[in-house]
């Protein structure tokens, strides 16, 4: 088992390298660079920047170097824990991102757990009572959930809560608590804000997971080992939870692989709409202003987050399924 985890960890190194390469290509893709975007911004306010100043700016940030050199410098810095400087904020990237990446990770993991907790029992119920009224209701709600884009859910939720309940739902903390030290009150306040992005982000995934669980379990419910369990004299509830659900849950665990990337990219839009202090809005702004090292760091870390999530799900899967663990 330990060997398996070490193998998987080693396997992450080339994956991380590939992600860094892709990230670098992506942040280099748009025409122009930070200097030209900066000049354009100044031009809008009526200030013109002469070529010498532009060149000075480029030299200062190393934008004139060849691509390979820039990439090598960037990756070299990251290996030393230095993500470079944000041009726009004029601060080291390190100071800007960690709290926000942490928030992103927290919201994503919370959403994932909530999705599992909700979809598991509903999926089981839908499969066991296939074609019952409840199954149909769950299916209809599920398809609605999958079909509705989550930014739309966010906007509708914002509208309803501010128009009907007079509650502001932006952010993750009330203004009073932002600078306050950790306390029960702060936690409660956080949760009272956090449920909204969790709800918005989780809707479509939950709906999809209900379908996954239902389909997995339907495949298992008629397997011979279920009949064996019934012939032993087990009660229906106990035998279903103990045998087919136990087997059907394995593919369910591995859904992390595709749910987590969807969550992290969905988070960008939803956090922008809801104005959350997570990595998403920061990334969007960095991309718009071609603040390449900030954008690069955020993309790279999101990729890393997905890799770690996948690793965790693989380890969970190996723990839960002896066929994977032992062969």
């Amino acid at each position, binding site marked *: 088992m330990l060997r398996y985890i070490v193998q998987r960890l080693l396997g992450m190194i080339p994956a991380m390298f590939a992600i860094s390469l892709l990230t670098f290509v992506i942040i280099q893709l748009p025409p122009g660079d930070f200097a030209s975007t900066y000049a354009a911004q100044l031009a809008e306010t009526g200030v013109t920047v002469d070529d010498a100043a532009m060149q000075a700016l480029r030299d200062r940030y190393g934008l004139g170097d060849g691509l390979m050199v820039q990439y090598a410098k960037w990756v070299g810095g990251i290996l030393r824990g230095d993500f470079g400087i944000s041009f726009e904020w004029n601060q080291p990237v390190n100071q800007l991102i960690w709290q926000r990446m942490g928030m992103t990770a927290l919201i994503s993991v919370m959403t994932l757990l909530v999705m599992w907790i909700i979809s598991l029992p509903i999926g089981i119920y839908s499969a066991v009572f296939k074609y019952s009224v409840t199954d149909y209701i769950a299916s209809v709600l599920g398809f609605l959930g999958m079909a509705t884009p989550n930014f739309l859910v966010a906007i509708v939720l914002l509208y309803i809560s501010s128009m009907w309940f007079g509650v502001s739902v932006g952010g993750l903390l009330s203004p009073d608590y932002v600078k306050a030290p950790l306390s029960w009150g702060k936690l409660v306040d956080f949760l009272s804000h956090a449920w909204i992005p969790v709800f918005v982000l989780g809707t479509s995934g939950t709906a999809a997971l209900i379908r996954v669980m239902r389909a997995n379990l339907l495949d298992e419910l*008629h*397997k*011979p*080992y279920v*009949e*064996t*369990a*019934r*012939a*032993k*004299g*087990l*009660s*229906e509830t106990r035998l279903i939870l*103990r*045998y087919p659900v*136990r*087997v059907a849950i*394995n593919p369910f665990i591995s859904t992390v692989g595709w749910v987590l990337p969807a969550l992290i990219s969905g988070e960008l839009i939803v956090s922008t709409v809801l104005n959350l202090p997570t990595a998403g809005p920061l990334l969007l702004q960095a991309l718009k202003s071609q603040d390449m090292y900030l954008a690069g760091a955020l993309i790279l870390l999101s990729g890393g987050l997905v890799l770690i999530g996948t690793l965790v799900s693989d380890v969970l899967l190996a723990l*839960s*399924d*002896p*066929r994977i663990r*032992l*062969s």
Partner: protein
Amino acid sequence: MTDILLKVRHVSVDFPLQKDIVHAVRDVSFDLRRGETLCVVGESGSGKSVTARAVMQLVAEPGRIVAGQVHLAGPDGDTDIVALGNRGAAIRAIRGRRIAMIFQEPMTSLSPVHTIGQQIIEMIRLHEKIDKADARRRAAQLLDRVRIPDPEAALDRYAFEFSGGMRQRAMIAMALSCNPEILIADEPTTALDVTTQAEILALIRGLQQERGMAVLFITHDMGVVAQIADRVLVMYQGRMIEEAGVFDLFAKPREAYTRALLGSVLKLESPGPRPVRPQTEQAVMAISDLCLHFPLGQRARAGGSVKAVDGVSLTINTGETVGIVGESGSGKTTLGRTLLRIYPPTSGQVTYTRDDGSKVDIATLSKTQMKALYGEVRMVFQDPHASLNPRMTIARIIAEPLRINTALSDREIRDRVGQLLERVGMPTDIGDRYPHAFSGGQRQRIAIARAIALRPRLIVADEPTSALDVSLRHQVLDLMRDLQTDYGLSYLFISHDIAVVRYFCDRVAVMKNGRIVEIGDVAQICEHPGHPYTKALIGAVPRPDPTLRPDVQIRVQA
């Protein structure tokens, strides 16, 4: 206390489907006595398995018991199992505790994610107030009783770590864990090799005598019936045809259906008529020192590999049928596939002689070059349900090789498909129907029509009759023999079933662990096997004659 443990009276089971109702079991009545073995025998769809499940209220949705009673005798009088329903505590107290069941597929009847021990201990603790350590001790004793080596360690292992025979032993240990009065066995040896089957049958028999258990044994195999039954119940299309003692049934069957069933079985007990062999043999395929080794995942770097085919040499002559027999894992199927280059051989030659006398070595051909030979060397597979594409019509299925390999026009192809269907004994107007409309035997005929569409010279037939009911087997074999006479075909006939090989083949090769251990004339091998493995293999085949069974023989000698 009465001797009769179970009284089944006028039980009927229906499966309401969307349009109509399938009467799976109609008005079945029988008694089961303490310590006896009652075999329920019938072909697929006869309702034998449903009958067995009805006894435990285990009929699968949407089936339901619509009439009748099942009385289980107890110290406080009879309990009607039908009246208990299929959910409550009362029926659950009977399942596993008083009536236990074992199933056909030892591969899938045990949970893949729980250890053997967890599953047995769960059953013991479900029915008895006993602590975990005691239950574990008892589970270990049970595994020991069914002769699983190192029972303590086996408790902590998973089903997939065991072979099929060991899994079935574990399954039996679990079924016996609460000392049931009745054991229902639903085709418990069908998925096993003959030698393993013989061991499991002996085990069930021994345990039954030791405990005085009644056994309700469901099977389609008359050989098994002859070996273990005290009494036999013959079923056909949901109805009881005949009930009799095993000796009476085999000696003087009353009903026409029973006679026909026994007839099909006995027909396969002796060699069938064979086409006359020419004086001088001409080889169509000569296999020489063929090897196929599969590297073993992680152990590959240590040079580890599975020798699926390990130095096989064999010649198939024109118009000849060569049988390959062996148990699962002997490499017989892999050998067949290597001959068509579905797998690339590791070494050796497969020299194929074409119609014009030129020779090619299939072992060195590329897959593209092999395509040119697909018209001449073809394959027929075991499972006609899986080998015909369910989304293609019969006409398209049979026409496909013609379309790919010939330049015939659509009209010519249509005529040819009609001729082929007629040749395999099917109506010619079924071309626009789909495979699901046909039974297993009909599908295998269609698969054969597809195989002969290009007038091949050699057909590799991989267990073509094992998925078929016994009454259909010799029909398909007779068809294959007629085609052989007409077209001068040669067959490589792969089978685990000695009876079928004896009926159909000229020569037979016995395979074990990728090697041929014995090869020779079919009568020679079947009557006077030389190699100990061949002897064991042939000795383990249950003969459809109850006077040959070991306990009877012993009694006769005494």
